[in-house]
């Protein structure tokens, strides 16, 4: 693995160029979110004191400011409100055009604006059902003591229910 123009970085991992979040416990206190994703679950944090379920998950309740948070499962299917198809300018890391996004009503919990994968151009329409789709992304070579350990990672999009 080489980095053209910067020979000293050959083989080095650069967090400042990483598309995806850090998911190990050493670098992220909401790391269970990603472990749940690996089980096909979409979770967030619920405040045990006031019942708020903020998304993204977090360590501080934004409503009552408690730090007494627990994990809760959210629905993994939703309904498409509307969609967009990016045909020019798809950013590096997101495959070939079109890059499809949809406003998805997650059964009243939240309205997500998310990427829709496994979906051909012109396939999606308002009212369609979509479901959580979890996929592997590049692992992070993380220093643990004197060793370098490959930290596995996943991320999520949604896909049409067929």
């Amino acid at each position, binding site marked *: 693995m080489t980095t053209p*123009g910067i020979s000293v970085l050959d083989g080095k991992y650069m967090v*400042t*160029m990483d*598309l*995806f*979040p850090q998911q190990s416990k050493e670098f992220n206190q909401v790391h269970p979110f990603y472990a749940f994703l690996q089980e096909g679950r979409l979770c967030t944090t619920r405040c045990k004191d006031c019942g708020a379920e903020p*998304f*993204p998950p977090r360590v501080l309740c934004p409503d009552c400011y408690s730090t007494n948070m627990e994990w809760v499962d959210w629905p993994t299917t939703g309904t498409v409100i*509307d969609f*967009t*198809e*990016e*045909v*020019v*300018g*798809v*950013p*590096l*890391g*997101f495959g070939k055009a079109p*890059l499809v*996004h949809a*406003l998805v009503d997650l059964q009243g919990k*939240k*309205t*997500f*604006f*998310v*990427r829709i994968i496994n979906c051909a151009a012109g396939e999606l329409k308002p009212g369609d059902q979509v479901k959580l789709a979890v996929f592997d*992304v590049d692992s992070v070579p993380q220093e643990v003591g004197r060793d370098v350990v490959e930290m596995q990672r996943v*991320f999520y*999009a949604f896909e049409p229910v067929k």
Partner: protein
Amino acid sequence: MDRNVCIIGGGMSQWGVRDGSQRDFFQEAARALYDDVPQLNPKDIDGLLVASAYTERTSYQTHLAPLVAEYVGIKPRSICARVELLCASGSSAIILAFGLIKSGQADIVMVAGGEKLYTPQKWEVFYSELASVDHDWDGPQGLGLPPPVFAMVAKQHMKQYGTKKEHLATISVKNRRNSAKNPKAQFQTPVTMEEVMAGRMIVAPLTLYDCCPITDGAAAVVLASEEKARDLTDKPLVYLRGTAQASLNNMSANMPSWTTWEALKIAASEAYRKAKVEPKDVNVAMTHDCFTISEIIEMEDLGFCKKGEGGPFVAEGQSDFGGRVPTNTDGGLLGCGHPFGGTGIRQGIEVMRQLRGDAVQQVPDATVGLTHNLSGFIAAHTVLIYGREVA
């Protein structure tokens, strides 16, 4: 101590896909500023605020303000710091300079903003835009670059209010016509309605001319207490009357509404209240036309027309010369381009010129002017109101 504050001069580097570095553009902007205020000895500037969003990513430089001070030949002694709020960095820095001078913590402050966004390989700036939204949540959905976001805004506005593609095109034609008369603008040629309507598809319904470009360049202004301003310029004084900035959410999942920008309504009403004006009093406006649909919603949520009527409002020419509120008279983001930290400064310069009466394309008898930026995933809104008289 509560003092009146004036914007007394401004200048820009050439904007566009530029040869040169970030520090080169800051020097060019400073030279243009010094030419605009010949009575000002730069050594008398006591404060510097620098607005730059991507300085770490595309110029690999933090601690930017002392570097800019060294290059533009000033020695700050009241404030010397950088301000970042992505597309609203420049306006944020003007707000802070206003507060420092008003409260007596500074007397004469340079506010400079700019970026070198294009790097030897062009993909990098687009990749770096992952840092502009919530990196951990919206970024990995492919939402670092904004066109899909504003396409969804446009689709929803069309669905809810009947806004048409031709309404969007009116904005492109107007702002490109204005930038063609602005020698510092990225785009020096006008476009016709036919060209705009035939523009290549980016994300439906947005086509090429609906989207502002990525831009290299810088701009700088000087703010001073009224007392100092009287010594430093013979031109008509332009006052900062009132400002506000509001944010209600950051991640897309927490947007209160896609078609009514609630944080803009809050920022606008707070700025109007502090400036002691109403929307009807505004004679000229620079609003954040990152995409054509943005300018239409801004006309509504700034209170220049009724909600949902932004499309017909712009189509009737109400945001053009001779209309209700001439908007983006220097070309806006669509025509001048958008070096993130520079944009709010450019807007301040154009409003200052309109109120002084020496704009390239002058709005007759303008006495109250407004600037607006949105930033991030439509996550913060910034409104500044300037006037020929104090609030």
